[in-house]
């Protein structure tokens, strides 16, 4: 003859837990209140710190974070100011060799004296046909480095540069003033007496908006025709995160003999700004959240312990019906873990709502670490586990005899 072991089905355990928690909902919620508030405070703190940090960080957008500008230091005063001639003409190819540079190009203002720009003469006695339009000399890589886009035509290339071809790319404003709208009919413009074939018209640039109103010609053409003396600055487009590195390497690559004569503009490191903000906000509020979690855990432990005493009769009955000590402990532990997890879910919801509400009033975009809504209920469950351990042990060590003899 055999004796089968008593057993408790997992589904039964869970449904017993559900019944126990829903039998007195108000009491369940009050028991969990401390944990709800604690988890809510933690989620709110972390969420707001992240959100606020992200607002400040968002000023350093991707466009700025990937721009490095190297310019030659100026010398002289007033009208005599001129750049030191330290950036070599082949700056573009020197920089493009660096790992992390996606595009580079030189850009310099060309001094055309009093020369005015005009397109092929149109007889218009009333209209103005000659304009003072800035002329910029560039290496072909500049268009990539400023993330330009074409309205029509093409950019000039290294071949134009090498041959000193008289070609020009117009900024949209310059094109409008010169009345050039298409390039397929090979329009020609004049700067002073020099003729340039227009090969392209820009639509827009992401950087250097001054290019939009300028006539852009190759470096070599500018040197030959307008005696351009040197490169003013180099625009470099770098990979995300490479700005600081390139900022450090570029002067040496450009002017190995006197790198200190170059000025480098790099964007500030976003990481540093973010960590400063988060650190300030977090420390205090995390401490507060921790305290309320502790209070919440004590709350759960307290009420669970009281309920063990209240349910002495039930414990005795369950033992009589075949529950082992382990089953009793498991039941109470499951109840407190479920209660903690429930509080975690509720607290997380409240915290997320608070973050969204604060963000709405400040017109921020709410930002939350994606792991947070999942980790917080787990934290609640762990609190329930810790808080329920002693009451569960107490319940399991209740003698069924004494429990049954007590008043129901």
């Amino acid at each position, binding site marked *: *003859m055999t*004796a*089968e072991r*008593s057993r408790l089905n997992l589904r*039964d355990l869970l449904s017993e837990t559900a019944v126990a928690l829903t039998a007195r909902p108000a009491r369940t919620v009050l028991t969990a209140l401390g944990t709800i508030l604690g988890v809510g405070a933690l989620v709110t703190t972390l969420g707001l710190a992240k959100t606020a940090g992200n607002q400040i960080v968002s000023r350093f957008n991707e466009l700025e974070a990937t721009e490095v500008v190297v310019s030659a230091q100026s010398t002289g005063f007033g009208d005599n100011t001129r750049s030191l001639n330290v950036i070599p003409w082949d700056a573009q190819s020197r920089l493009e060799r660096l790992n992390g540079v996606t595009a580079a190009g030189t850009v310099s203002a060309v001094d055309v004296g009093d020369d005015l720009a005009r397109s092929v003469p149109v007889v218009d006695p009333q209209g103005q046909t000659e304009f003072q339009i800035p002329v910029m000399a560039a290496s072909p890589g500049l268009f990539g480095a400023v993330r330009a886009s074409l309205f029509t035509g093409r950019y000039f290339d290294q071949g134009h540069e090498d041959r000193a071809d008289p070609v020009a790319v117009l900024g949209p404003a310059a094109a409008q003033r010169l009345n050039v709208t298409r390039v397929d009919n090979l329009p020609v413009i004049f700067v002073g007496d020099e003729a340039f074939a227009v090969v392209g018209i820009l639509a827009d640039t992401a950087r250097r908006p001054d290019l939009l109103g300028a006539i852009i010609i190759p470096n070599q053409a500018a040197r030959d025709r307008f005696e351009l003396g040197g490169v003013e600055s180099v625009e470099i487009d770098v990979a995300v995160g490479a700005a600081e590195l390139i900022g450090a390497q570029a002067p040496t690559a450009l002017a190995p003999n006197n790198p200190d004569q170059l000025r480098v503009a790099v964007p500030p490191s976003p990481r540093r700004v973010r960590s400063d903000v988060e650190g300030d906000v977090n420390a205090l509020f995390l401490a507060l959240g921790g305290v309320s979690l502790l209070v919440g855990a004590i709350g759960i432990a307290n009420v669970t312990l009281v309920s063990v005493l209240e349910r002495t009769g039930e414990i005795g*009955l369950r033992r009589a019906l*075949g529950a082992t000590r382990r089953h009793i402990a498991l039941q109470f532990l499951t109840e407190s873990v479920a209660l903690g997890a429930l509080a975690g879910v509720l607290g997380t919801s409240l915290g997320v709502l608070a973050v969204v509400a604060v963000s709405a009033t400040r017109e921020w975009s709410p930002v939350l670490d994606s792991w947070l809504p999942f980790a917080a209920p787990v934290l609640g469950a762990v609190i329930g586990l810790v808080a329920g351990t002693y009451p569960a042990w107490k319940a399991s060590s209740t003698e069924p005899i004494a429990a049954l003899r007590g*008043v129901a």
Partner: protein
Amino acid sequence: MRSLRRSRGAPTPDDLDDGPLEAWAVPTAPAGGLSFEGEAVPVVVLHQAGRTFAGPPPVEALKPTDLVIERGEYVAIVGPSGSGKSTLLHLLGLLDTPTAGSYHLDGIDTVTLSEPERAGVRAARIGFVFQAFHLLAHRSIVENVMLADLYRPGGRDRRRERAVEALVSVGLEHRLDATPATLSGGERQRVAVARALVSEPSLLLADEPTGNLDTATGDQIMALFDDLHGQGLTLAVITHDRSVAARAGRVVGLRDGEVIEDRLVGSGMR
């Protein structure tokens, strides 16, 4: 009132899952051809079983006692407070283990079992009825009865149906979804009896079942016990009420931890 014991034909696969084979044995028909043990094994065999509570000073609540309860017997255990009848009840109900001697329930040596095994025997073979009913206040009647199958191996099958059947057998089919608070004392105790019966126990242990009831409702419960006994259930009722004891077939009297009388009465005399 319909028969509590469902008639058992040839075992079906469902029955095989349902529990140990001997649960099929119809108590009044020991030679029913199903008994693996040959002639019916007595439900309870206490051999020099005693219970001493560790001191100081040690208290010998139950002196070494021999007690045999045959299948289908209806035994009243009587005695004044402190006579050891509660201790005996707890030993019989496997809520406590004897510190001396042995206890075989349905032929199972219960002293050597592990706690999960003893709990399993308790779940499958013993039904309890308490003075204080011990119903869970926040659950319906039928849910209270279903609780009896929670810890029983194989207890999940047709749990609700069997709970309803047990409630029908105690005449409460019209109150299935009521909560205990809306029931009278007699009805509550009948729910408790239904809960004890749902696992088809070998032994029904009742601890002062009429203690919280007035005489009339107490009589109804005792009539229910008579009926169950008539259907072949083995009952042991602990009481200090002589009129309750008089309905049993056998009275075991205790005093100071010792059996001082053991006699057949009433129906048992016939």
